[in-house]
């Protein structure tokens, strides 16, 4: 039953993050007991790619979703043993491997009552019967030949399913669509660029900052025709607030990376949208970066919480930004309440809370044909979409971070449908001080970390805070770690066969036993940002990761394996 720590806290049904349904009945795993965790079972998926999908809990089943070509395993845990209940293997269009920018994995299904809603990399949204795994309907949501893929889980918002496309690297025109959950019938589609009508901007649109106003800004802030392939993917977290009737989503960076090919503000890329869940009409928009130079994409984690903020109870939206800032917004109005860096940042000097503008550093601007060195954070982003979680107990936000910087050299990019439209040479680098990764426990009110655990390698396996005061996270070198939620003290760790690039999951079996499960499997040497056959001697390999991860020994077996831990 415990949906508690689902990777994105993409809370379905009623409720907010704090009072998610199915809270663990009693906190059996505490800093005191965690040392007793023992491996009870493992399950191999047979897929060699990077497994970024956390195991999901649907009723009494544990769902394991492999990277493309996908297999969805529904497992049952019976007395500590795993049994495959059913499997679902959608037909795949293998051409999608060529247009998947960042690995072949994506988060697994969303649970809507007795249904599972599944996005596949090659652009299908599929509804399954949760009990049998039988497909109910299957609609195409993304066009692979155009470079579109699906990289996030669908969002269930009432009787609607919201799906967003990915593919900034291929010059797509990002869009988000709503389907009828029962039939898969399309309800509305809104684009991230283009005319106000296409974007869903109408009379109800009231951004907090004036700079986000402007008639047809999705066209006029682009060079002629640029918006047609301007990126702005909806590949990050989708979030639904049933009280407000809003769906929140970020928009990806503008395409191409080379800024000189897209003069202007590049609306509505690199921003956050609040949309009416019923109609898709935009309520507010906040552009994280106008004319984005450094990949300040809005596809980082989105979370919501209701808190006292400076003495006033507010409905907050928290965005862990790829620009390296934790943004705290009022999710009713779109006002930015706070934006503080959680990783080393020098690409910008901060966020002007009066205008909402990201203050760029003059010496880190990028332009065609010129290399800008030591820009932090890297375009690959300091956090993955599932890399942050809130704990209602401690009130802290736990962020799995990659502390990468980069050298970036924009180059001319030419648009050819279905081929990359990037236009930049990238070379990731170590930050000026410290390690490549860290687990950050972030104090929202103070706008600074409560504590930080440095890791040698980027931390991609998102955190799992448990009510008992323990936070689990996986590391790139294959450790599952349990640390104290308040002090960051390492309590327990276990070495697994492969690096962990997905968040662990906690669940309670029908018999009351509590388990922590983690799906290990980093894929190739450079993890989810690349395919298997990558040669890190090339500094620009895997969007520049080759430069920092060169020499990191590849896992003996990068393929996926589910590990199940329990207290004895």
């Amino acid at each position, binding site marked *: 039953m415990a949906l508690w720590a689902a990777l994105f806290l993409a809370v379905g049904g009623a409720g907010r993050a704090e009072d998610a349904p199915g809270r663990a009945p009693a906190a059996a795993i505490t800093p005191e007991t965690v040392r007793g965790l023992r491996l009870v079972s493992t399950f191999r998926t047979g897929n060699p790619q990077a497994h970024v999908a956390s195991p999901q809990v649907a009723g009494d089943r544990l769902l394991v979703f492999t990277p493309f070509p996908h297999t969805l395993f529904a497992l049952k845990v019976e007395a500590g043993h795993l049994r495959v209940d059913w499997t679902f293997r959608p037909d795949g269009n293998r051409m999608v491997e060529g247009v998947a920018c960042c690995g072949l994995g994506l988060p697994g299904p969303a649970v809507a009552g007795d249904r599972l809603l599944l996005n596949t990399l090659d652009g299908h949204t599929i509804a399954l019967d949760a009990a049998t795994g039988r497909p109910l309907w299957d609609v195409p949501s993304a066009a692979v030949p155009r470079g579109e893929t699906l990289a996030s889980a669908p969002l269930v918002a009432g009787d609607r399913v919201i799906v967003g496309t990915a593919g900034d690297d291929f010059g797509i025109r990002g869009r988000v669509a709503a389907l009828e959950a029962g039939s898969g019938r399309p309800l509305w589609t809104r684009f991230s660029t283009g005319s106000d009508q296409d974007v869903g901007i109408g009379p109800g649109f009231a951004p907090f900052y004036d700079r986000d106003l402007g008639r047809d800004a999705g*066209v*006029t*802030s*682009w*060079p*002629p*025709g*640029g918006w*047609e*392939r301007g990126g702005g993917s909806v590949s990050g977290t989708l979030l639904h607030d049933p009280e407000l009737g809003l769906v929140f989503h970020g928009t990806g960076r503008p395409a191409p990376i080379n800024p000189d*090919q*897209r*003069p*202007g*503000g590049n609306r509505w890329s690199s921003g956050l949208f609040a949309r009416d869940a019923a109609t898709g009409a935009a309520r507010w928009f906040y552009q994280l970066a106008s004319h984005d130079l450094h990949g300040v994409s809005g596809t980082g984690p989105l979370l919501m919480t209701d808190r006292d903020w400076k003495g006033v109870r507010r409905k907050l939206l928290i965005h862990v930004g790829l620009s390296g800032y934790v943004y705290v917004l009022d999710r009713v109005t779109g006002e930015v309440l706070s934006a503080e860096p959680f990783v080393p940042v020098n690409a910008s000097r901060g966020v002007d809370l009066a205008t909402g503008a990201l203050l760029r550093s003059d010496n880190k601007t990028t332009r*065609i*044909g*010129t290399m800008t060195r030591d820009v932090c954070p890297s375009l690959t982003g300091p956090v993955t979409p599932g890399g942050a979680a809130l704990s209602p107990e401690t009130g802290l936000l736990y962020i799995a971070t990659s502390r990468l910087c980069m050298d970036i050299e924009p180059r*001319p*990019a*030419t*648009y*050819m*449908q279905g081929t990359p439209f990037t236009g930049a040479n990238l070379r990731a680098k170590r930050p000026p001080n410290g390690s490549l990764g860290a687990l950050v426990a972030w104090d929202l009110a103070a706008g600074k970390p409560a504590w930080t655990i440095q890791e040698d390698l980027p931390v991609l396996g998102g955190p799992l805070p448990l009510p008992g005061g323990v936070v689990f996270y996986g590391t790139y070198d294959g450790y599952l770690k349990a640390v104290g939620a308040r002090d960051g003290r390492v309590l327990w760790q276990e070495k697994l066969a492969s690096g962990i690039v997905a968040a662990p999951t906690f669940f309670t079996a029908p018999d009351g036993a509590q388990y922590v499960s983690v799906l290990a499997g980093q894929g190739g040497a450079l993890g989810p940002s690349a395919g298997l056959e990558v040669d890190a001697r090339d500094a620009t390999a895997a969007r520049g990761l080759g430069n920092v991860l060169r020499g990191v020994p590849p896992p003996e077996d990068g393929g996926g394996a589910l590990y199940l831990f329990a207290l004895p």
Partner: protein
Amino acid sequence: MRLRHLIVSVLLPLAAGGCAGSQSALDPQGPNAASLAWLIGAFTIVCGIVWLLVMIVVGVALLRRRGAAEPADTPLAEDPGRERRKGAVVLAAVLATVVIVTGLTVISYLATHSLTAASGEPLVVRLRGYQWWWEVTYTSPSPDRFVTSANEIRVPVGRPVRLELSAADVIHSFWVPSLAGKQDLIPGRDNQLTFTAERPGIYRAQCAEFCGVQHARMALVVVALPPDEFAAWLDGQLRDAATPANEEEAAGREVASGKACAACHTIRGTPAAGTLGPDLTHVASRQTIAAGTLPTTRGSLAAWIADPQGVKPGNKMPMVPLSADELRAVSAYMASLK
């Protein structure tokens, strides 16, 4: 000022043609070029006079003793007073040289100053040099009014134009002698050039820095238009490509977006969005194709598409195999892209 006009009118006959489309430093059509032509004239006259004086003195020196009877061969016989007088004359000549050289330095310095001073809000045009063509982007405060064109710069008469020069590959140099001196386009550097066209007309320009095998065929034209015509033209350029008016042109559009053309060229309003070659959205409205190599006609378009390496060997446009019908259709379509 009268001197200026006099000098210019003396030099003008040298500017053969002097007609529209000329490419001559002696046929100035803007204040920059005029000031440079004046400077050329001033230097030519001063230097010419100096040269003539030297030649006259040499001539006199040679001839003054010719008739003299050959005296005894006493080359070392020397008259100290005479030597001293000669020394004084040489010194005077050197001082005169110093004065002339200083004067020339000063006027050239002043000319430099007058060139950099421009009045009025300039039209900013980005010019990017490629092997072997020019990409021209008209900027605007509103990015959706950016217009990308190639191998032709249209400018409004009377308004200063500021070119922002950059190079995509090797060093090129922009030179439109009738309007301004040249300025290099250097990879990794930003250069600027400001000029004003005073009269409507067509001024040819050419790459002046050796840039590879087709350096000779890297020309462009500057078309100066009255401001209202320029504005109308710019509005026209903002529109998407013309829709085909007949079946042949429609077939041509299919060829252009289905064959290799689309990989390199942009035709706005069609799927073709490549940026490796010139933007073809309004290619037929330009004077020339292939960077000043051929006049824009349907025939020359067909010849160029059929065999680019025959017309301009070594350029980066490949010979795409097309059937005769496809070639006809695509050239008809291109010719319709006004």
